[in-house]
């Protein structure tokens, strides 16, 4: 039966996140972008919203609800409405935990999911992205080769969040041409973490390049062992989450744009009272709503278990473009003031462009 209303439980969580980001995140976001980071305290607070715990099995301290892509899209939007870098930082453990939850053997789940009970943000992450304009998650340059009773990983990864501090990460690599995930623990032989990356946006999120040079791991480190992972399924989770994030960034931009356009006077009235600006704003609202509904529908398909790659791909691209459009127009509405970092909207434009590289690297 058709409905556009989140469940009461979902709404409760959305309200919680909104309170957190409004009270704690939004005013910290400018400085975090300049100083390149959020405090450990704020990250712990964010972690304690307990988003990932909803889907963690009860035996491991969670609520044991079935993983919901719609929930993921809803919560991601709300987090990114606060700040994209913070959202990505808080979602980083999910990059590790959700694939383990979905495809891990019981031994892997027991070992790793219990660390989610921590009061601090668990230091777990994943390495998927590789440099190159033709990066394709289904056709990775990083390889995993079976060797005796283990695997040898070789390759280079980029955009790996919190890699320097991570206790463990999921490294995606091609095994006989098929993408699989491997758990690589801190200090593994052949794992070299590079310098922190300097990026255009999402600067509060520490990300790293890393190299795997003859990195040896035991056979039991392959996620799901014999079963492996289904990349499509993982990517679709990721796509709807990224879609939600993009909608959140766009929403934040529109809120700034509306407030500014109603305050800023030109030729004797607020610039929002001119159709050129008002139409911009109307279209921004329309595209945000459109993107959100496309993402919801894609997520709904994922949750139903129907083939959803088409919906997810269309939804995430639409949301990505919407974030760019809305952030760009927000800067445009601010005029020269939009170009000044202190005013906070150029950051959204820099952040929004990250979706070009994030598709396939966020998950909730």
């Amino acid at each position: 039966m058709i409905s556009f209303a989140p469940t009461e439980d979902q709404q409760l969580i959305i309200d919680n996140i909104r309170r957190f980001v409004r009270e704690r995140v939004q005013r910290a976001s400018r400085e975090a972008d300049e100083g390149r980071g959020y405090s450990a305290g704020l990250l712990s607070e964010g972690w304690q919203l307990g988003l990932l715990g909803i889907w963690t099995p009860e035996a491991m301290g969670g609520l044991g609800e079935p993983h919901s892509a719609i929930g993921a899209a809803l919560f991601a939007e709300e987090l990114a409405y606060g700040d994209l870098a913070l959202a990505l930082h808080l979602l980083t453990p999910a990059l590790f935990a959700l694939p383990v939850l979905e495809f891990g053997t019981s031994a892997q789940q027991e070992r790793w999911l219990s660390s989610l009970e921590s009061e601090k943000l668990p230091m777990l992450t994943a390495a998927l992205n590789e440099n190159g304009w033709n990066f394709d998650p289904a056709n990775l340059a990083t390889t995993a080769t079976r060797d005796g009773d283990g695997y040898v990983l070789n390759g280079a990864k980029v955009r790996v969040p919190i890699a320097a501090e991570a206790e463990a990460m999921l490294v995606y690599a091609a095994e006989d041409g098929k993408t699989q995930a491997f758990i690589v623990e801190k200090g593994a032989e052949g794992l070299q973490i590079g310098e922190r990356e300097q990026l255009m946006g999402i600067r509060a999120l520490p990300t790293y390049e890393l190299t795997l040079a003859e990195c040896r791991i035991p056979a039991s480190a392959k996620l799901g062992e014999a079963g492996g992972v289904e990349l499509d399924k993982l990517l679709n989770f990721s796509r709807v989450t990224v879609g939600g994030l993009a909608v959140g960034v766009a929403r934040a931009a529109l809120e700034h744009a509306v407030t500014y356009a109603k305050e800023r006077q030109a030729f004797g009235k607020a610039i929002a009272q001119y159709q050129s600006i008002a139409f911009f704003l109307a279209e921004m609202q329309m595209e945000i709503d459109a993107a959100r509904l496309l993402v919801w529908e894609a997520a709904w398909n994922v949750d139903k278990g129907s083939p959803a790659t088409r919906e997810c791909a269309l939804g995430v691209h639409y949301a990505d473009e919407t974030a760019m459009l809305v952030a760009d127009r927000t800067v445009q509405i601010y005029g020269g003031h939009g170009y000044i970092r202190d005013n906070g909207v150029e950051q959204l434009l820099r952040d929004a462009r990250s979706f070009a590289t994030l598709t396939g690297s966020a998950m909730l």
Partner: protein
Amino acid sequence: MIDFEIPQPLQKQLSILENVALQVMRPQSRYYDEHEHERPWDYIKMMWEGGNNAGYRGRSGSGGGDPLQVGKTEAGEGPKMRNVILMHTVEMLSYGDCGLYLSTAGGALGGAAIEAAGTPEQRERFLTRFRSGEPKWGAMCMTEPQAGSDTANIRTTAKLSEDGKEWILNGEKIFVTGGLMAVQDSPGLLVVWATVAAGTGRAGMKAFVVEANTPGCKVARLEKKHGIRASDTAAINFTDCRIPFDNILGSPEVANAEAKDSKGFAGAMKTFDATRPLVAASAIGVGRAALDYTKEYLTKQGVTMRYDAPYAQLTLVERDVMRMEAQLRAAWLLTLRAAWQMDNGISNTMEASMCKVKAGEAVTWVTQKAVEILGNEGYSCKLLVEKWMRDGKINDLYEGTGQINRLIVARRLLGYTRKELQ
């Protein structure tokens, strides 16, 4: 819970309508495009008798099950789905042929206005006709040569007769969709917007029902159009056209208040909250026709869409088709939301305008793109694609242009009055 599941009975109804669209409507499309002022009587009668218009325009289906029963459970009333069902129906018929769909007998916009703003007595008196007998049409007379989006500038007048028993209408209306069928080709009716106090703008604006064959009401001409040629677009003159006092739409207070307030006007403007999503649905039907054709064509040429391919590997045509799909789907979901809100008593003025903007823009772009992708064949009248491009454009124009609907969205978004944002 967020849910996009279409109920089984509606799915069943849609597959029947899809047959009508493809087997009955499509084969006639070109003929009625080329014979502009002929009426598609075969189609009209088939739909009227079969009840296949699925309740659109006030006549609920009698053949193929009553789709308005969708959602009812054995335990009693189910969720209300009237507008959701209508938009699905309209989309599918427009997928067949938008011009023919507009010719479907029923109350149309006139009926919708009476439904929204009429008293129970008026609904009974005016709408019953659309449920039995011969095919009949309703139509709405709003636009005038000097007043389109600026509805407050309407000059058609309604004056009370000396004995106070009649209204006397004088003025000229244009762009009346189905006007000929409503007043000349059937015992239908018009809903006519007129001012009871010239110069007072919206405050004096009221709606009046003029029944077919009322003396003083005359079709002056039929327009020759870019598209939707199967549907007549009439110019109608009112010359001392007398109608009963009770034909003023709404409660008698509406008439008594005269120029004092614009409640009558605002009330009837609410009609648009229900009709804009239906226009949006119609737009999407046309767009889907063009998109489906393009995809089938490409498939035959050996082009398969790769939705999971990375950016670097996609061809330009694939990117275009993906964009076309996304635009139409986005418009559809916005429309679905507006209809769902209507069904659930949630105020939807902003969302109704929003879906109309999006759908009007999407169908325009998607159909233009389809002609472009299909190249020489797309431009040829051997295919229907060029026709869909012409048909589709109307949706960005009527029931409020894209611009006026943007203005409505902007006012709601900014919390501005009409005066603050003009």
